[in-house]
């Protein structure tokens, strides 16, 4: 029985990188969704939520086409770097970011809207610029939203399978994540490794959630009060 440590490492890298990128990307997007008056906000909101309902294979299929080095973004990337997006770690990261987008945007959006205009207006009248208000009022008041987004994205990326298989394949050290390694172990009737990997993933996920809920309880303050 062997454990594919490389797959674990790659999974952790993928999940970590995806989480960092998504927190940065989701912040302005969530802010825009909460505060924009435009009529097409609903369209963007629906688009962001799509990965929640689409089968991963549907997304994987379209991403496969987009990433193909022959045309579109894939060709652009290929001419820029000399490497294809398909079946590469970079492609996997981009796919994960898209696939986990709603898990980052929705909690942060919820947090932003619960901060409310009132507190921001008070900050403005006290001399705080928009950026100042964002960093000193909105971010600290939204930390539970960020915590939730971090955990959901990380965990969701750990559990990603369909999209990875479609656009990443199974290249050790490049695209072979734990879920794929596990699938292969089962396919080849290597139940011993499968058991170990599955148990580790299960244990890890549970511990992460446990820590988050504990932190959440410690940090808790009622957002509604005092405003």
């Amino acid at each position, binding site marked *: 029985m062997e454990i594919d440590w490389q797959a674990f490492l790659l999974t952790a890298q993928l999940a970590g990188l995806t989480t960092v990128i998504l927190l940065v990307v989701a912040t302005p997007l969530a802010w825009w969704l909460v505060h924009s008056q435009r009529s097409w906000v609903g369209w963007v909101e629906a688009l962001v939520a799509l990965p929640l309902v689409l089968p991963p294979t549907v997304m994987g299929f379209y991403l496969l086409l987009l990433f193909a080095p022959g045309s579109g973004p894939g060709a652009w990337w290929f001419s820029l770097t000399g490497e294809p997006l398909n079946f590469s770690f970079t492609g996997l990261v981009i796919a994960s970011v898209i696939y986990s987008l709603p898990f980052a945007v929705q909690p942060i959006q919820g947090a932003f809207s619960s901060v409310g205009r*009132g*507190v921001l*207006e*008070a*900050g*403005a*009248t*006290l*001399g*705080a*610029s*928009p950026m*100042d208000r964002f960093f*000193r*009022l909105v971010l*600290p*008041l939204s930390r539970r939203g960020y915590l939730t987004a971090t955990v959901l994205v990380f965990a969701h990326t750990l559990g990603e399978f369909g999209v990875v298989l479609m656009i990443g394949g199974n290249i050790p050290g490049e695209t072979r994540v734990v879920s794929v390694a596990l699938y292969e172990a089962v396919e080849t009737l290597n139940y011993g490794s499968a058991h170990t990997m599955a148990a580790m993933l299960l244990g890890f996920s549970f511990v992460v959630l446990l820590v988050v809920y504990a932190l959440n309880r410690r940090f808790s*303050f*009622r*957002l509604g*009060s*005092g*405003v």
Partner: protein
Amino acid sequence: MTVLRIGLEKTLGEFSLQITQQLNIHTVLGILGNNGAGKTTLLRLLAGLDRTERGVIEFGGSTWLDSNRGIFVPPHKRRIGMVFQDARLFPHLTVEGNLNFAADRGVGQLLPRTEVLSALGLEGLLARKPEGLSGGERQRVALARALMSAPQLLLLDEPLSAADMGYRVELLPYLRRVIERFSIPTLYVAHTLDELTQLADQLLVLREGRCVALGSVTEVLVQLDLPEVAGREEASSIITARVTSHDLEYQLTYLAFGGQTLSLSGLVAMPGADVRIRVFATDVAIALLEPAGISIRNVLPAIVTAIRIDAASPFADVLVAVDGQSLRVRMTRASLDELNLTESQHVFALLKTASLASD
């Protein structure tokens, strides 16, 4: 005195605000109006929290808004302090953190922190979080926070409105102390006269987005054609008088204005002090001849200056002049007809001793 010059137009659905005024703010300019008159809209435009397509705002020497020249100074650069109906404290910061937030962003000479804290009685609350404060405490912190940002103009949007009566009584002395001690030009929005007669020296009355009256509180209160100041419970006038002496035995204060003498129950202020006295219109009666053998102690010779009859109610409002000051009198239409009152008629105004209350 600070000059605030405004020319504002703003349309919100059915409602439109249209005000062109020069406001000379001495201490507190009260803005009175019914719900929906546009008071909060006006304050939000002044703060820069709402925008309008057409308008001018000039405060002191600076232009905050000039739509023709494309000038709009955002709220954080206007150096205002605003207190909202809800305190809007920052829930993730302690009371001290809330005050620091303001002080860190204040420009120029800050007010001494210890003085602000003592004026609002906050010394014991610094370490508390907003969620643990009572409603009255929250508003005091909100006021202190606004002061800590060293504002050039204070905008108070019904700071007592969310309050039940107990908390109004608790907050009023704090407000008065802040106004006296820091003398920051203040616009104070309210929909009841009570607070304004106690705190403001000038009054602007808004109705359906238009300014219908502007002047000293004393002047505006005796305008008989203003329903905003003619409420059954609130119609009143203000007399300024000087305390002359106290009668300790009967616990009365004697006051003088012009050639008249007044007596007031309770002991108010030191002899020599000028005080404003609010007299409710329902507490004044009119006699054609000087009465004798009655319990009312304040009988003042007066001249009728205006009469307004509201045919839809049992009441009429009469304005009389007593030694240059105006008194508002509410009586029934029946009494008015019986007395056959006419303008410039000489009469006697009877004030119940108990009705005189210090402002």
